[in-house]
């Protein structure tokens, strides 16, 4: 049993915008690349060219279809990684203290040298955000790129998680939720940022911005729009009569 800090100085995390995520998986692979080469054991792949390729990923994109009653079906792309919960059950369940939440910034990490690969934390996580590396037999999870965000060997503008840096549609934002004026706090406030499965009581730090309403019923707009399609004439000849008048009224017309 490992204890959580009573509070953290910062609450670093992500805002993920489901309105703009196009499901391109750029974040998935950028994460895989950085975290294979950096923090702890590489993210290995089993049977990478065979019948059942399975590898360790710290971030995956799931896609869900929604079928509204009176509108076309929608496809929602849903990237998911560790949410760095304030009440992280994966930490408290850890028998060795390998899982911990950092006091400074709230990032949940695994100290791989203390990890015995028991997998309890993965069972405890309601989000399925932890993956056991089959090669190294240690638990892997999103580090929020703790080895990037403070890294003095990187230019300041690059001190953000790899997934945020690479996201082409700007659907991922990184910042401090403890600061009410931070970019992530403002975005979350303005766009109705949501907790994932709040009923689990985990108090996730990461927030999801819901998609804007789509395929709005426009039948009531017909009157508003009608003036824009008011016919100028019904026959070509009438149209050309209109044309004469329209051209005359334009700058440079025949007055």
């Amino acid at each position, binding site marked *: 049993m490992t204890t959580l800090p009573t509070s953290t100085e910062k609450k670093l995390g992500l805002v993920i915008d489901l309105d703009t995520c196009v499901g*391109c998986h750029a974040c998935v692979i950028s994460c*895989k*690349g950085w975290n294979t080469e950096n923090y702890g054991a590489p993210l290995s792949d089993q049977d990478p060219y065979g019948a059942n390729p399975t590898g360790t990923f710290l971030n995956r994109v799931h896609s869900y279809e929604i079928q509204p009653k009176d509108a076309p079906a929608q496809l929602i792309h849903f990237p998911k990684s560790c949410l760095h919960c304030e009440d992280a059950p994966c930490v408290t369940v850890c028998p060795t203290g390998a899982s911990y939440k950092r006091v*400074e910034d709230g990032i949940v990490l695994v100290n791989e040298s203390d990890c015995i690969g028991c997998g309890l934390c993965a069972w405890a996580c309601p989000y399925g955000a932890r993956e056991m590396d089959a090669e190294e037999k240690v638990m892997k999870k999103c580090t929020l790129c703790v*080895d990037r965000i403070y*890294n003095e060997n990187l230019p300041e503008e690059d001190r953000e998680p790899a997934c945020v840096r690479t*996201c082409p549609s700007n659907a991922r934002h990184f910042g401090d939720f403890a600061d009410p004026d931070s970019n992530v706090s403002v975005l979350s406030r303005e766009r109705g940022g949501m907790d994932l499965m709040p009923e689990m009581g985990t108090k996730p730090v990461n927030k999801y911005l819901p*998609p804007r309403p789509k395929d709005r019923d426009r039948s009531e707009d017909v009157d508003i729009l009608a003036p824009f399609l008011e016919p100028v004439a019904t026959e070509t000849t009438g149209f050309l009569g*209109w044309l004469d008048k329209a051209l005359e009224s*334009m700058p440079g017309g025949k007055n």
Partner: protein
Amino acid sequence: MPKDQPDLDLSPKVSDEIRKTTCYMCACRCGINVHMKEGKVAYIEGNKDHPVNQGVLCAKGSAGIMQVNAPSRLKAPMKRVGPRGSGEFEEISWEEALTIATDWLAPVREKHPEKLAFFTGRDQSQSFTSLWAQGFGTPNYAAHGGFCSVNMAAAGIYTMGGAFWEFGQPDWDHTKMFVLFGVAEDHDSNPIKMGIGKIKGRGARVVGVNPIRTGYNAVADDWFGITPGTDGLMIMALIHELFKAGKLDLDYLARFTNASCIVNEDPKSDENGLLMRDDDGQPLVIDKNTGDLAPWNGIGVEPDLATTYRKAGVTHRPVFHLMADRFLDPQYAPDKVAEATGISADRIKQLAADMAHVAFEEAIELDRPWTDFRGKKHDKMIGRPVSMHSMRGISAHSNGFQTCRALHTLQIILGAVETPGGMRFKPPYPKPATAHPKPHGKVTPGAALNGPHLGFAHGPDDLLLHDDGSAIRIDKAFTWENPLSSHGMMHMVISNAHAGDPYKIDTLFMYMANMSWNSSMNSTGVMEMLTDKDEETGEYVIPRIIYSDAYSSEMVAFADLILPDTTYLERHDCISLLDRPICEADAVADAIRWPVVEPDRDVRGFQSVLCELGARLNLPGFVNEDGSQKYEDYADYITNHIRRPGVGPLAGWRMGEDGLQDGRGDPNEGQLDSYIANGGFWHSEVPTEASYYKPFNMAYQDWAVKMGFFDSVQPYIFTPYVEPLRRMQLAAEGHGRVQPPDHLRQQIKDTMDPLPIWYAPLSDNLIDTNEYPVHALTQRPMAMYHSWGTQNAWLRQIHGLNPLYVPTKIWDENKFKDGDWAKVTSPSGVITVPVAHMAALNENTIWTWNAIGKRKGAWALEEDAPEATEGFLLNHLIHELLPEQADGMRWSNSDPITGQAAWFDLRVKIEKTTAPAESQPATPAQKSPVGKGPKSQAWKVGK
């Protein structure tokens, strides 16, 4: 820090060195930072300074490391030792390989250069490979545009001097409404994603018109799940509504398009339907100042859209009047097109009204004075902030050219091209069809071709026909079957060569084109053609095949001689303004690749191999006067080749009289070093006063000449009325020397209309659409790109399977359940494949991901890989020829104007079936010449 918390190193060393080059995982060509550790590739990220991607990078780009270490990489030159298709090879030396190639090709060049067919697939060096082919003297050269998106490219060039992607982009900073037509996730992908993120961030509206709601359409605020092949009909209805309501930018149409040009309407004239011209050949308008005819480009001329010109009892009208006749035709009314398109008349009207509202009520004015080519000064730049984008989805139909033309016409009538908030061209575009070369095909044994192969035909005289009317080119490009086939027709090469129609060839030489598999229609048939033997001689019908690829693709197995290419991080390349550049609307740009790692195999960059092979064959342009090799390798060519005075492959850091300069200049031996020091690219901003109205804007024209895009200023106007099409029609009506064969006259009259039209996909008239009611499409996943790389170890964990996605209606009708399989039948083939349900789909459309299905033994995959057992290709259902016509003829399954492969015209029927052991047809395995991949990997190059 609490005592339990470990002491972390928060500033680990990231890499020893960053090498900046250009991605090659698709055709986006983003800038990448390759982080090196101990000489090995450790991590790849986007280059923040790069104009294309500004730091972001897609899944493919970030997975490049798995491309560079892929087990499927070819290791050395090989010659075939087993039968074709078996994959049995023997490794040979480069000297032996080049000797074999020279011994095969030299006699061909000496006697019949046309018997070499050289096609280069997904080549990014076409200005170089075409020069090689030109030097060889064969007319048979093209890249893959004919089976990709030539309709989009050619329709754009003919209509307005550029299309989307490499040619133009939405004005992301100003647009208020972005409309995306068709499958388009595969081209310009990162810039489009960035643009969508940007405009959604400020609340602008995104509209998707696509049978399939994935990717960009998944985030669209409004989705129109249109019936495939009917986009043109819906666009015509939008134009109809805008004409009917007079929501047109008349000033723009009069000044900047040929809507104001006068059409010869004398029915007795052999120039009927062409524009009336002055003695200098300039099209005429009526000048409002004088009421008389005047050249379109006369100083001070104010073109009139309304006034007609009467001469000798005949009234000749401006093009605009013909446009009104066409677009006001009730057949294009929304309620007339609703059933065919699957989109209700109300929704079409709403979309038209939204466009009208945004264009004219939410117009933009930028305080940027500019001067047009008639000398008229404008104090503002007025914008119509409706932008559009499209690629393959509307292009890959037999009505694609006219559909793309309709789309551009829609943009033009709104005044939304090259204006703020609309679509903006990327230098060196805009460039009208008349500024491009014409096609060339004059063959002289032992000598070079008479000019560049591909170009833009402007009339029957430009076709590549022998005096007897037979095709000069093996793919029959630029013939009456498809006169404006500007990108060639790579998809017809193998079947024509096999049939000996129009003639037999000796050697098929291909680069980066998986023509035995996912890049061909009728893949099974193509494999048979490649292996077919002449019964009398016992020789292969296509006698020799040389192929260059970096990976063990399906096509490798069918070649006789393999010239192994490098991966993209091991090579020199130039992304040149002479070719398909990477410019953005605000900047001209080009870029290089350079060997950030050296190959660890006996492989060579294909372009460097061509430099040596060209010298061995004594090709003009590839040898010095003393007969020695002119370019040591591709890097030498990139640096020293001169295309026109002062213009070479790269425009940055050229040598001028006073030192280094942009655009024009002499070769600079340090040029590649300058590119490397600058992050692998060069770019130069478009001057602010030249940023919009580029074709008409003298500030842009002057800058374009200075940069070397043109040698003299050449302003032009957009051409919603395309005269080259009318010239073809005139011939079909019996005018002129070069006449089409009688069986094609009606098709030419019907399809080559100088104004946009819509007609049903051609195959719909030749098959029973009741028997084959379902449309079938493919698209590429955003995280994969065909198979010009390998089957990437990381990406195949995301997209290792390609079920056939079935809409709810068809799912329920067939009582499908998860895990079921279906038999899918087209008029030309049958496949049996796994199905999956998808609701966000046009109710009559099924689809799958393209090129996930692999042949067993290819790509160093295990033979039981899901790509080979459950994966499949839709290609088996698509024939390269249309069904037999009434007269017994079979025409190419292509657009009758450009020859674009009509992949997306496919119609099928689908029925539930018992699951076979694996997807059908199951092609027997090819032997892997590179072995198999490892059983596990943990790729960490640092300590």
